[in-house]
């Protein structure tokens, strides 16, 4: 670029010089008349003019040279700047490209998410009752696009069992409450789960104007959740059956005892009937005893059944002390065989909790058997297990099972709740991990700690039912 500039400057200079020389030459040619006083100095004047011109030319060339050097430097600076700017720009462009790619990716992701998650949006003009859906919502509800819509139409698509809940939630939202709910819908006769989240816009005077929200198909998540729930229940059942297996000897004894008594009584009755004058009073007493022993055996069988039955999975009002007492009855014989003293210190008047008595009973039995097991190696008294229930903080019931065994120890404390951890020869090592998951499913916690003195304490909490729930 520098050379080019030089070449463009030079012809202009030459042209200027030529013109000047021509003018000068013609001016000072003999044909050009000078004032007569100067005529004799014509040669001298021409020489001076030419000298000045040459000097001026030299000065011009010098300065131009100098100027060109400065321009060159400026030019280099400019070029450097341009280079730098270009490089920066390229980086910017690269950044932009990356951002654009990321955007494209996230758009693709979003599309995929929308496809997979099946999300849609809606708008409800509360003044005109006009409801509009995006294609996604039509897809979720399995309706052809363009079907005329209003709130009533939407409500008719909600699962009948959930319609009241949805309607109530929406009315609450119109009063300013949060609208973020999960419910079932009937799409083409199939039951689907959706999650809805919406916002209501209000006028300055607080009149609801417009509602807008999103609908997401969460059927698959719900199915996975239910499947997990079912697996957990099955595992808990397996664990209960195992527990029942551990109690078999004691339970068999407990059933056998009344059966043996019944047989002995019946045979005694037969001997009495062989007498010439049978003792009728004694026969009555015998029959009474037989009836009592029969119901005793039936009680035991009922308890075993309750342990082996598959729970409904539905939570109901539950009396914690009652669950504890039932569990104590189940392990009573076992504790006598093991020579363990089991004490119960249950607080009176505890409020009900929401839960499944079969599952919580299972936790109780697990904890009781573990406590007795902990006393297996301990020979010096006391060989005690103490069960306690009490209210804590007004919001939860705490149940603890304390033993006077050797304690858990710091090392084992970390693993006791892990599945398949066991110190017993028999047993799956699932009891405590299942117990913990059961208690957590009830909204409580199960924890273990060594006692200050001897042994360990396992405690769990269960939230009490809210009064208005």
């Amino acid at each position, binding site marked *: 670029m520098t050379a080019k500039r030089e070449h463009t400057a030079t012809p202009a200079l030459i042209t200027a010089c030529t013109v000047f020389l021509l003018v000068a030459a013609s001016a000072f040619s003999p044909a050009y008349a000078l004032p007569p006083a100067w005529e004799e100095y014509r040669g001298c004047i021409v020489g001076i003019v030419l000298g000045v011109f040459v000097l001026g030319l030299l000065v011009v060339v010098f300065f131009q040279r100098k100027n060109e050097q400065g321009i060159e430097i400026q030019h280099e600076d400019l070029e450097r700047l341009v280079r730098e700017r270009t490089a920066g720009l390229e980086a910017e462009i690269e950044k932009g490209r990356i951002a654009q790619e990321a955007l494209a990716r996230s758009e693709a992701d979003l599309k995929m998410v929308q496809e997979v998650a099946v999300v849609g949006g809606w708008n409800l003009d509360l003044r005109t009752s006009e409801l509009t859906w995006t294609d996604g919502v039509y897809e979720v509800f399995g309706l052809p696009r363009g079907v005329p819509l209003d709130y009533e139409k939407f409500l008719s698509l909600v699962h009948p069992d959930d319609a009241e809940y949805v309607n109530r939630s929406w009315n609450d939202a119109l009063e300013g409450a949060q609208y973020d709910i999960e419910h079932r819908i009937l799409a083409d006769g199939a039951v689907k789960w959706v999650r809805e989240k919406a916002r209501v816009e209000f006028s300055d005077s607080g009149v609801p104007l417009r509602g807008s929200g999103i609908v997401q198909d969460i059927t698959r998540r719900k199915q996975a959740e239910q499947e997990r729930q079912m697996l957990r229940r099955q595992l808990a059942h397996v664990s209960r059956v195992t527990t029942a297996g551990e109690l078999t*000897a004691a339970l*068999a*004894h407990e059933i*056998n*005892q*009344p*059966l*043996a*008594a*019944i*047989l*002995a*009584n019946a*045979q*005694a009755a037969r*001997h*009495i009937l062989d007498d010439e004058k049978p003792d009728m009073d*004694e026969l009555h007493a*015998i029959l009474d*005893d037989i009836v*009592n*022993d029969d119901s*005793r055996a039936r009680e035991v069988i009922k308890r075993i059944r309750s342990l082996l039955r598959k729970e409904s999975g539905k939570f109901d009002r539950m009396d914690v002390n009652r669950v504890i007492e039932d569990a104590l009855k189940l392990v009573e014989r076992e504790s*006598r*065989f093991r*020579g363990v003293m089991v004490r119960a210190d249950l607080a009176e008047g505890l409020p009900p909790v929401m839960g499944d008595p079969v599952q919580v009973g299972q936790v109780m039995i697990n904890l009781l058997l573990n406590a007795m097991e902990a006393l297996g190696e301990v020979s010096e008294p006391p060989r005690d297990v103490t069960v306690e229930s009490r209210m804590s903080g007004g919001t939860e019931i705490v149940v603890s099972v304390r033993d006077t065994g050797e304690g858990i120890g710091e090392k084992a404390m970390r693993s006791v709740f892990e599945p398949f951890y066991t110190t017993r020869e028999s047993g799956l090592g699932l009891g405590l991990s299942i117990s913990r998951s059961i208690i957590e499913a009830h909204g409580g916690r199960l924890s273990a700690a060594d006692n200050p003195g001897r042994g360990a304490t396992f405690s769990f909490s269960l939230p009490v039912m809210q009064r208005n729930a």
Partner: protein
Amino acid sequence: MNDRPDAEVLIIDDDASMRKALERLLRTMGYRTRTFSSAQEFLATDFPPGSVGCIVLDVKMPGMSGTDLQEELKKRDLPFPIVFITGHGTIPMSVQAMKHGAVDFLEKPFDDHALVQAISRAMEKGRQAMAFKREIRDLEERYRLLTPREREVLALVVAGMLNKQIAAELGTSEKTIKVHRGRVMEKMQAGSLADLVRMAEKLDIFTS
């Protein structure tokens, strides 16, 4: 059912209902019974010497188990024969109990005939044990009457030595030995040499 009237069946079971049913059954079959709710209660009871009877014992009881009681009775030299009853008789437990002299092992629920047979056998065994014990006691009583010299003579006689040999052994005359020997037979109430040998056997006083 025609066991001796002074023979009692001693029922030890922690289960009140079982205890009552057993007692009733045995009574209707002509037995005299006494019941105890635990091994400890049984051990705390004084039995007059020479008491006869048999124990019907539940193996699994809280506190002191049936087999524990069996051992304790042996230690205290109480010769009651034992019929064990159990809800879940395991083989090792039965073997152990039988080794320690249990007469029978009945699994609950059991038939009254099986129970009667077991009790009869136990009573019989108890009577034998009692008779044997009484005989030994008698023999020991008689043996205590012997002088040291007569005991020496007795030991050598039952060892099969002749009077002459005994005299040489003890450095005395054959005539003296004959007198000692006559006294031994008389004090021990032995009718013959064979009798005397049997008695010595029971008293475990063989020297050779």
